[in-house]
């Protein structure tokens, strides 16, 4: 089911899913830093909003979480994609591409055909 009501919420969720798909299991902090890096540091996340978003994805069954140990030997909660999450990434990415493509047509200078 596509989330269209809140674009920011939707995009954050997609970023999280996409990042998890690329990196495999990851804890919240690492996930946040990775998203910022991927954006070329053009995005600055409010980390406080990341956790409710993760919780929502988990409640919806797209991701799973378990406790593990980080690279620095610190106890941390790791998130990973579920089967449903993997399907979701593909679908949402396709939808997003379509949306941006349409929007791009509007935003680019109109060409007379």
């Amino acid at each position: 089911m596509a989330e269209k009501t809140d674009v920011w919420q939707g995009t954050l969720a997609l970023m999280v899913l996409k990042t998890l798909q690329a990196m495999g299991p990851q804890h919240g902090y690492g996930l946040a830093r990775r998203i910022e890096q991927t954006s070329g540091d053009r995005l600055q996340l409010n980390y406080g909003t990341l956790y409710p978003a993760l919780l929502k994805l988990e409640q919806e069954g797209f991701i799973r979480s378990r406790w593990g140990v980080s690279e620095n030997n610190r106890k941390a909660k790791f998130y990973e994609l579920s089967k449903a999450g993997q399907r979701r990434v593909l679908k949402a990415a396709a939808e997003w591409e379509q949306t941006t493509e349409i929007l791009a047509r509007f935003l680019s200078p109109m060409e007379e055909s």
Partner: protein
Amino acid sequence: MRRFRALWVRLKGILSGGRENEEFDAELESHIAMHIEDGVRSGLSPEEARRQAQMRLGGAEQARQAYRERRTLPGLESLLRDIRYALRGFHRNPVFAITAIATLALGIGATTAVFSVVDRILFRSLPYAHDDRLVSVGLTAPIIPEEFMLGGSYYAWRDNQKPFEAFTSETGVDECDLTERNPARLRCASVEANFLPTLGISPILGRNFLPEEDRPNGPKVTLITYGLWSSHFANDPAIVNKLIDIDGSHIRVIGVLPKDFEMPTLQTVDVLVPEALDEAAQRKADPGRVMYAFARLKSGVTIDQARRELQPVFNYSLNLAPAPFRKEVHLMVRSIRDRQVHDVRLVAWLLFGAVLAVLLIACANVASLLMARAAARERELAVRSVLGASRGRLIRQALTETLMLTLAGAAAGSALAAMLLHVFISIAPAGIPFLVNAHLDLRIILFTVLLSIFCGVVFGAFPALTRPRVATLTARSTGPGAHNFLRRCLVVGQIAITLILLSCAALLFRSFRGLQGQNMGLQTQGVLTARIALPRYRYTTAQQQMEFALRAEAALRRLPGVQAVGMSDSVPPGEIHGEQIYNNIAIAGRPRATSGTGGMVTWRSVTPEYFSALDIPILRGSGFIEQERMSNDRSLVISSLLASRMFGEQNPIGQHVQPVPNGPWYTVVGVAANVKNAGLSGADEPELYQLRRSFAGDWNPFTVMVLKTNLSPVAAAPWVRSQIAAIDPTIPVDIETLTQTVNSLADRPRFETALLGFFALCGLLMAVIGLYGVIAFMAAQRTQEIGVRMALGATRSDILRLIAGEGVRLIVLGGVVGLGAALAAAQLLKSLLFHVGAHDPVSFIAVTLLLALVALAATLIPARAAMNTDPMNALRVE
């Protein structure tokens, strides 16, 4: 789908409690730690790194809050929290919760039960099409209590009336017998052919009567009721056009009436037959057959208009009446509903008023309780408000509590209502229509519950609406505030309403006692009556009817323990009996009276032993003697009331009297003592006894055997039954003790008194609880003041006076208001009262004293507690 999954997980989250929040704390902690490590690695000082980490998180507490809200359903969670909080509060203060719930239950229960009954009586819809346009039309005269018509007038009215679109009649309900393999005594109503169409009823099977069937010697046809169809004909549709035997003749069933069919007079019926009157003969007859007329108003015509438009035909009938009686004949047009409920109406409204009063008291109590609670918690609310609870939050909390109380009260109230209704039905007298099929009405429960919710919301949430004053946090004690004034008003109102209820109940009670305790003028103990109605088709001649009665008399006299066996056509005090117009009775040697009817005279036809069976003393003369039964002499016994009216100081014995104009003359042979003969509450009528001689002409199919016995009635009844069955086993006999008969006459007043008494006591109880609550609360609020006063030298009795004085003021004020209102309300009861004035001082004084005593006790308890306050403790409270 995914959303539902999330919703489900969040719902589960509510139940899982705090463990997951701790888990998030750990996750957050590790997040911050990692962030700090990163910061230190990039060269920041640990303090700066921590600051940055906190900043990027947007505050740990906010993050936690956002997480919590996502984890569960915040709205539902806070509701549950409110409920838990309220339950804790109730648990801590169970008296408050129990009182509130009990008060609500009583209010809701009593109101619902009574409403359910009253609704059926006053507001039910009649089973006729457009019943608002149906009226009962007729004449009223002292001789028949309800409006009636006479054959000599009815057809003239029908042909000349203008206000009605249809006009119909019935000639009453008689007993008849279904004489088949499965015989039964039925009730047959005789109706005009247009009776059902006028009422707007169509048979569910078959057809209505045809005009040619409603003529003398027309084809014999009948419509049967649904009840008879089920009980005797197994709901077989083939009954239509079948012949059944009624009173020995074959009658064709032409249809079945709807299930909810009822006669406009509410008489029970099993079959309808055409009245088959000879119209031409009736038109000429004077006065003609007694009939009951019903009509359908043309649309837009009111009852008042109809009454005016009927004036010409009424005048026509008036001219037919004997000139001296005309003043006592009136025209009556009223709705069928009015005819049905006329004497129950007042009782129904009385109950309605009583129950409304109880509901008001209950609401006032709940309001008062909630307000006291709110006042006591003012500081708590202020603290919560300062700590950041929004006003909406506080209101929601207050509403949750109120709703919980109300719902608990409503549940208990519904159970109580079901129980009360059951009790009402079992103690109610027979004469109240529709009571038996009264049932709890959901709309009414809903109404009372909504009313109490309204009450609770207004008074319970109101304090939360006003912003808690910050001053209450610092004030040394909570001030009296405006609530207390309102609460005092409520208590005054409660006391006033209770006084009204109590005084009405007391009046009815005194009246009831008077009714029961009065002298009947006859012996009811050890008297058994057996009513026999012979079927006319088998006992066709008066000779046969007399023979049966005489054989029964002889058989009953042989029974052991029977001291006297009298026979009559009716038995006082309540049974319907013969009546005649006083001025129609001629006395030898005196001119006939020419003006007015002179009222009615009760008339009975009895055998000599009637007097000894009922222990009615013969005051003068010999009375009837057994030998006279065979003689040709016509003799009379008159009651002493009639004797003094007819003959004054003269000796009535040997006087000649002609009871019926142009009839035979009789000789007065005795004066009997007066007996109550117009029911328990009616004024005694003069009475005339005719000797029932052993000549066929003195007999008819109806006989009451009156037995005086020294056996227990329970033992004697089966013997009586078997003696009569030995003569003819098919004759139904109705055996009753006279005590039972008299008791059942008092059923109605007993019912009224019991119900009103119940409500009055409920009201008293609740008002006293309310009063106690207010005084106790005020005393508690003034604990410190009392401490100061005592420290400054006030004695204990000063304190008692201070607190009790408050209560006494409320009682006096409520008492005065209530007494005034009660005196006015008692006027409405007037017609229900017997031998008690509406302003009976005994009742009012007793009730006022009772209320004052109970109310004083309710104030003294908290006042004494205040008196025993230890000043040191009182001052140390803060």
